[in-house]
């Protein structure tokens, strides 16, 4: 088992009232899973994904990731945990505009203090794998949305995370580009990477092996 959430709730206080963003969430993820989170807008999908990715706190419940109890960890340890094991893919890519494709890919490695030659070979591998060698010196603004998202995925993958979290990765893409991304995820999943994606579309949902439906912060 990769991670498990037990009775996780998150709320905000508003006018003396608790407003639940997540309510009593229970689920687990095994290594190698491909999970789709579905639900109407505002149902808490992003919030849940952020909690799983340790980018956001929760108020109640337990969250264990591999051997660690995330809810008891200090922020710094938590940050180390997600930096080591989790790769993020965003709906609006969030590439660094000032860096070229190559440099964007290299960045997580720099932070993790990889040596220069190692960085070079890893970046080269990724460029090959996603067929974007020809684009390596372009800036994000010079790429199409689909290409940008490919770079986003490559960047998430480059430090070989165990888990990929993708929040509506195809939300800004046309259906053909979306399909390509989904094919990429399927391929990655086959290679053993665990994936949790948030999606609106029934079609994309089907790429996953398991579906979690959210409504008003609760799993239904």
């Amino acid at each position, binding site marked *: 088992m990769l991670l498990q959430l037990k009775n996780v709730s998150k709320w905000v206080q508003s006018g003396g009232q608790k407003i639940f963003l997540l309510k009593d969430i229970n689920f687990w993820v095994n290594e190698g899973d491909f999970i789709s989170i579905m639900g109407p807008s505002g149902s808490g999908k992003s919030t849940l994904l952020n909690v799983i990715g340790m980018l956001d706190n929760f108020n109640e419940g337990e969250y264990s990731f591999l051997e660690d109890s995330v809810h008891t960890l200090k922020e710094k340890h938590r940050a180390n945990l997600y930096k080591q094991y989790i790769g*993020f893919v965003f709906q609006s890519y*969030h590439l660094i505009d*000032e860096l070229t494709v190559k440099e964007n890919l290299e960045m997580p490695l*720099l932070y993790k203090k990889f040596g220069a030659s190692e960085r070079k070979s890893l970046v080269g591998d990724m460029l090959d794998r996603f067929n974007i060698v020809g684009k390596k010196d372009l800036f994000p603004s010079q790429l199409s949305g689909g290409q940008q998202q490919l770079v986003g995925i490559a960047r998430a993958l480059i430090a070989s995370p165990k888990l990929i979290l993708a929040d509506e990765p195809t939300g800004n893409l046309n259906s053909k580009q979306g399909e390509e991304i989904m094919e990429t995820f399927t391929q990655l999943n086959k290679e053993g990477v665990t994936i949790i994606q948030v999606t609106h579309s029934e079609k994309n949902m089907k790429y996953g092996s398991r579906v979690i439906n959210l409504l008003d912060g609760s799993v239904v």
Partner: protein
Amino acid sequence: MFKHYLKIAYRNLLKNKMLSLVNLFGLTLGLASIMTLVFVVHVYYNADGFIEEEENVYYLKTFTTSGHDYNQTTYPLLEKIKNSCPDVVAGTHFFDWDLPLLSYQDIELQERRTSYVDADFFEVFTLPLKYGDDRTALKNKYDVVLTDKVSKKFFGEINPVGKKLVLNDTLSVKVAGVLEPISSYASLRLGVLLSTQLVEDYQNFKEHTGWSNSFTYNMIRLNANADVQKFENQVLDLVRQNYAEPSHIKAIKVVPYTEVRVDNIPIAGIIIKGAIATIIFVLLIVLVNLINLNTSVMYGRTRQLAVKKILGDHKKSIVFQFCLENGLLVLISLVVASFLFAWVLLPEINEIFGGNFGEIAIEIPNDYPVILYFLGLGIFITLIVGALPTLRFISLPIAIALKGKINGVRKNLFFRNVFIVVQFSLAILFICTAIILNYQISFMKNAPLGYEQENISIARIDLEYTDKESAESKFSEILDKLKSNPFVQDFSTTQIVPSAYYRSYTNFMDPESGKEIRIRYGRTDANYFKTLGIPLLSGRHFKENQSDTDIGTIIINAKAMKALGWTDLENKRLVNKGETSDGFEVVGVTKDFHYQGMQNNIEPLAHFYKGKQQLKNNNYLMLKIVKGKEQQVLKQLENDFAQIPSKRTFEYEMLSHKTNAQYDLLRGILKTVNFVAFFTILISCLGMFGLISLIAKKRVKEIGVRKVLGASITRILLLLSKEFIALVIIAGCIAIPVAWWLMNNWLQTFAYRIDIRWWMMVLGGLLALLIVGITVGIQSFKSAMVNPIKSLRVE
């Protein structure tokens, strides 16, 4: 890794080209101004650094019962003080007496700055000597010490110690030392130093150096633990016991020598204080501005920072990255500003203040601390403007940062607004100052002076002629030619001209009434008042005749007449105080005229008749020339003078040019104030530009929605800018009374001054408002014009 940061920093600067340029421009201008001012202040405070333990050095200041004060005393006082006060370590006289002609082989020189000092001189002023020994120099009656500049004129580069100079073609003096050059901002202006033992032998000196004539400065070094108050009392006792007329002296103050420069040129104190205030103020403006702009940049990068954190970046490196970016900017600015400082602003400062305070230049061995200050300043600015704006962002939870939204902005709004109000208060203050100063200067420039300025040309005739006698005879030929020249209406040979009266004062007494008067005097010929068109109120002009019978007569001005309480000139004479001679016959009274700048009052004046027109002892030839013929006449004169061998060349200028130059320093200050006012407004507006773009960025969606719902462009303009306009109005309400108070106080130092009018203040405020309105307007307009569909698609 560092390379990586550097690369991003570089690209970020390029990406925000406009903003980077704006930042660079403002910062460079700010830094260059700060550098210049820091340098001036540094030089000023170090100029007297050669005086060891300056805190123990004092000078004497006399206060009379009639309300005057001056820094001179009688000559014998110092000797008495030295003999009776044990706290005195050393003391020296310091005064000019004559301008002796010095010669070495065939080189002759009359140095303007020839001072007489005592044997103690080098114990009071620990001046560094380039050649010679400061323990023995000037101990001997026939010693002379030269500045490096004067020494070079006589001896070139060689060590002249021991060489003999001839004084006034009679005495021989021995060079005992050569001074190292000292800063031109130093309190001492030196040229040739001679011993008081020498001057004590002069007949005319003996006659004037009793207990009634105050003409010498006294500098005294006291024990470190001396009781200055006690010493002052002792000095006053000596004055009471010895002075010819002790009842005229109210007090003699023992003043720390550190105050002497401000005492001599009061405006120097104002300028230096103003410079320090301006440094702080410019620095503040630069900092506030960059912080505000950087905060705006950080807002734009919130998301990016969150992504970097997710990818494994550290908080520290985010701060580092931003500091590096700013550091780069600061570094470029520093370099450009250094050039601006060294090649533009410093020469400009010398141009403005050089005439009054001397010119200054950068000398690395002396001034290297300044370079360290500048580097320190650069690091300081980088840290502040790089780190401060990031702090809020790095503590932001990632999930929120990813949305690119920032809470808690309201809290900081208060400080931001205070900053803006402060910035604009200062800007308006400077604008008002500039406006008022402008009016004061043009008022002084255009006020009737009481004499004719147009058509009057002034030529210098003290040209150090090699053969005085033949020069004199050639000169009288020139004068004859001038007399028959139809274009020359009048001319005068004189020691003084308006704007260049000597600071010579004497105490006269009316033998009839016993009334005393301190009077400023000068010497002129018979044609002086006629040439200048100064009317006589009563009496007559001087008369030039073969035996010069008018020598010993004087013409006074109306002010002196009034001070003496006279109603007519019948049998009126003035006698030097303390003398029993017949004194001088007063033959005429002129209308008052402004012989000096309008900063100063008209004092009681006495003009002595100087004898027939000649070169000897005259400084100027003043000509009234028919309009349009000036060049022709003066060129002819120049040719004529070229025939007389002399060391200096013939020069001339218009009188209006000379009187105008009386306000050069003020104009310099005005120029500086204008520059700072311009700079403040510019920087403030640049900052405002950035701020509005930040606000607009935060409110794109709101603006978009409002537009979709039908808000007009004007409404949105108003929405974005009304806050700033309000702040500027508040700033005006603060700045205007302060400006009024400050300027009113300053104007009091002018004898003739304008009244501050309310519209000058309002004009200052409106000007600031207008400039802000335009800036804010442009930027708001840009934001308001964005197509709402575009801005709404952002999410």
